[in-house]
């Protein structure tokens, strides 16, 4: 029971303490919001609005002034007082321990104050903008008037160089002048923003006219005089090349020249109409076309020299081809007597001959084309290069064919040498078998040795056939090589293991009398040794010896390696 009482007392105390703390916080927030509200009310909006009185309050200016004024009034008389009431309500809620509601109202009040502050800032900014534009206009009008005067003077000076574009420019200037009047009118009416825009348009116009007067003289000279002259010169050059034997008609220069002339005329008219950018494009196109035409003519000139050179060079190469082909055929006939050649080999030679004939025909066509001006020299040069490439490929194919024949002979010699090497390998193995005196080795390897010898004999026999079939020879060589490698590997492994097993048993003999278990294993090892089962013999011997002497196998291998290095 006493615990309940204590608990209750503590609970009550906690509630009281919390309430006091929360209320304190809310009161503090209310104070802050109140101060903020007062600050907003004291913003110098009226002062800013009063600055507008220096302007002409009519038209757009008047409208704006009234609008801003009423907005400000609304803020001060309605919205801000509402905030004040809200603050009282918040205090009320706090006193009644309705802290949640109080907090919510305080947040709403803060948000409202943020909106009001934003509105006030915007209002002030718009006022400033209007005032500033009026000032700006006053400055700009002076500068633009000066600019106008300048432009007019320029027109007088350049009238002679801009031709029929002068009236258009003058009309432009008049238009700009009218803009000034409009500006005055708008300023009178208090439409400062509109006046500013009008001034901007006048300036842009004047700048455009300036630009035209800068660009037109040079461009006009190009379009009307320089470029036509270049076209004429080009035409003369083309004519001269045609007389010199160049097939320039293939380039259709005549049509190009005509088109260029039309473009020049077009560009001139565009300049008169003040379409400067379009005229520039046309002029650029004409210039580029003329340069390209010159490049084409230059390339054609170079190509003629190159084509004539290629024709001369390749005439000699072509002349030698039939002889080379005949030599190859003769060699082929000789090779056929000694070696068996496949149908494919014959076919290859026929194809080679066909290619040779095709080369001769196509060269004749190219030669004719050069003589009769059937195509441009540039094109002819390209075709001649292609033809030269085909000739090179043909020569390569001929060399490959010759190499093939040569390889047949070298393959034969290599095969004979390989047979001898295989025989030597077998003899070395047999010698080693004989000298080793290891039991059963000959029996263990008898079959493989015989197979290897037979394979080598077959390989040797295949070399004696006439004509020699190199495919069969290669196959026999491979079989023989495989058999010999297999038997030598097996034989050497057998001998190495046998020698190691013998050495292990010999080594283990020192432990026999004192260790029965070692003796038993060595006896088994000996038995396996005499049967020719050397691997098993070695395993048994090592297993037995390692009972009393560790690392024996390592030691024996080291000994064997040392012995082999001494022998080598």
């Amino acid at each position, binding site marked *: 029971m006493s615990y309940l009482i204590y608990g209750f007392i503590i609970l009550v105390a906690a509630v009281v303490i919390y309430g006091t703390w929360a209320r304190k916080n809310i009161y503090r927030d209310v104070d802050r919001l109140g101060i903020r509200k007062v600050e907003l009310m004291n913003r110098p909006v009226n002062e800013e609005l009063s600055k507008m009185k220096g302007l002409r309050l009519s038209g757009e200016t008047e409208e704006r002034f009234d609008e801003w004024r009423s907005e400000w009034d609304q803020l001060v008389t309605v919205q801000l007082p509402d905030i004040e009431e809200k603050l009282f309500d918040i205090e009320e809620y706090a006193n009644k321990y309705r802290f949640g509601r109080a907090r919510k109202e305080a947040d709403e009040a803060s948000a409202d104050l943020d909106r009001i502050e934003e509105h006030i800032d915007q209002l002030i900014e718009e006022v400033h903008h209007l005032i500033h534009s009026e000032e700006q206009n006053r400055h700009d009008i002076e500068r633009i008037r000066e600019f106008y005067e300048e432009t007019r003077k320029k027109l007088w000076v350049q009238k002679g160089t801009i031709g029929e574009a002068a009236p258009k420019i003058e009309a432009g200037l008049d238009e700009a002048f009218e803009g000034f009047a409009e500006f005055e009118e708008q300023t009178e009416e208090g439409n400062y923003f509109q006046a500013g825009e009008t001034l901007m348009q006048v300036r842009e116009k004047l700048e455009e006219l300036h630009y035209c007067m800068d660009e037109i003289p040079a461009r006009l000279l190009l379009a009307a005089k320089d470029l036509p002259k270049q076209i004429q010169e080009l035409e003369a050059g083309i004519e001269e090349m045609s007389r010199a034997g160049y097939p320039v008609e293939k380039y259709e220069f005549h049509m190009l020249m005509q088109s260029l002339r039309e473009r020049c005329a077009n560009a001139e008219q565009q300049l008169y109409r003040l379409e400067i950018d379009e005229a520039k494009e046309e002029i650029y196109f004409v210039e580029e076309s003329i340069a390209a035409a010159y490049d084409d003519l230059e390339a054609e000139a170079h190509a003629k020299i190159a084509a004539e050179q290629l024709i001369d060079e390749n005439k000699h190469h072509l002349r030698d081809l039939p002889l080379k082909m005949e030599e190859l055929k003769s060699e082929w006939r000789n090779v056929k007597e000694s070696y068996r050649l496949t149908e494919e080999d014959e076919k290859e030679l026929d194809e080679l001959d066909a290619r040779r004939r095709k080369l001769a025909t196509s060269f004749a066509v190219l030669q004719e084309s050069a003589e009769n001006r059937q195509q441009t020299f540039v094109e002819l040069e390209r075709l001649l290069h292609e033809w030269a490439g085909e000739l090179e490929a043909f020569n390569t194919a001929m060399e490959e064919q010759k190499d093939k024949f040569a390889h047949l002979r070298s393959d034969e010699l290599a095969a004979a040498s390989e047979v*001898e090497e295989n*025989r*030597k390998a077998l*003899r070395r193995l047999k*010698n080693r078998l*004989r*000298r080793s*005196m*290891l039991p059963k080795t000959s029996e263990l390897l008898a079959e493989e040795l015989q197979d290897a010898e037979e394979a080598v004999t077959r390989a040797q026999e295949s070399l004696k056939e006439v004509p020699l079939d190199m495919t069969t020879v290669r196959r026999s060589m491979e079989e023989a090589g495989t058999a010999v490698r297999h038997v030598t590997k097996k034989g050497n492994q057998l001998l190495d293991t046998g020698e190691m097993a*013998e*050495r292990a*048993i*010999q*080594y283990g*003999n*020192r*432990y*026999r*009398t*004192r260790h029965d278990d070692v003796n038993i294993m060595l006896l088994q090892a*000996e038995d396996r*040794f005499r049967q020719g089962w050397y691997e098993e013999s070695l395993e048994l011997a090592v297993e037995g010896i390692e009972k009393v*002497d560790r*690392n024996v196998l390592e*030691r024996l291998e080291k000994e064997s390696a040392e012995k082999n290095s001494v022998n080598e």
Partner: protein
Amino acid sequence: MNYEQTYVTLDIGTSSVRIVIGEISSGSMNIIGVSEVASEGLKKGAIVDIDDTVQSIRRAVEKAEQMIGMEIKSVIVGITGNHIQLQSCHGVVAVSSSDREIGDEDVTRVIDAAQVMSIPPDREIIDVIPRQFVVDGLEEITDPRGMIGVRLEMEGTIITGSKTIVHNLLRCVEKAGLQTADVVLQPLAAGSIALSKDERGLGVALVDIGGGATTISLFENGFLQSVKQIPIGGSHITNDISIGLRTSTDEAEKVKVEFGNALVEDASDEELFEVSEIGSDQRQEFSQWQLANIIEARVAEIGTLIRQELSRMGWKSLPGGCVLTGGTANIPGVLEVLKDELDENVRISVPDYIGAREPQFTNGVGLISFAYRNAKIQGKPLDAGLDQERREAPAEKEMQPAGGRTKPKEKSGDSPGLKQKMSKMFKSFLE
């Protein structure tokens, strides 16, 4: 290893010095190590330079010691040559023991008695080989120990040799730092493992074609009857090759081993090899067939000399045929050529002991076998070959400098000797 029954043999030949180490265990022999080095200081089987011979022996001993990781102290030495003479002997003694049981002492006495005979001063007795014992008239007794009898006789063969040659040989062994456990006639030793009982009984010629000489030993009725040596062997073949191919003897020896064939018809014309021409840096190519022509001629000559010698020894036909041994018998074709020359059955004997399975080790292996049995029969002790007190673990053995015998390192703490003593003490405590 049973050190007491481990023996080391020394076979000093014209071309090689060989050592074989074997252990006798339960009546069988196990080879523990072998070594073979080139021999210097000998010519035609005889010592011509003691120092060179001593060096060769030391090299062979060092090689063997390195192989087994133990020191060799005494060796059984093989001896042969034309200075060897065999003569029959006879000895008689009365059995000494009171119960008339024949013991070791009686056997020793009868053997000693058999040696009482006139021997020229320049000769000495190498060994006495009992052929049979006779106990109270009962003949063909091989071992009279344990038998009851009054009169013990022995019929045997005394083997004598030139004092000079024997002493020179033993001097070389002594100078090499070894003790001589026994001296054994090599043909007897070889015959003990190379020949079968039937062959020895029927009559057989054991032909040992060595490096510098060929020893012909005749066996009949189970015993060695005569020994002869002809001063021609494998080294003559090597010389012929050296002269024929105009190359050094080293290269000649290599090609003989690698490519040699004594039968021309078996030799290949396609198997080629190169040798350096002596006196220049050029190399020449020859075929096995050309080599075989040189070898066959010499081997045929050896065969002819053997036949002539056999005839001089009084033998026209050998029921047991001829048994070849020695390093030269390894050359392919030798068997066929000698068969042709001798017109007898010929075979090659190869020792069938794992670790020593080449014909050149026949003498070495035979020396162990024969010496052991002979000592047993004669009741005389045979010193073990290895030094029990000075043995090292195989992996820790260091290379001995060539030509010198250095004192082995003594281990600190548990020395092998101390270990053995401790283990003996422990064993005795258990017993």
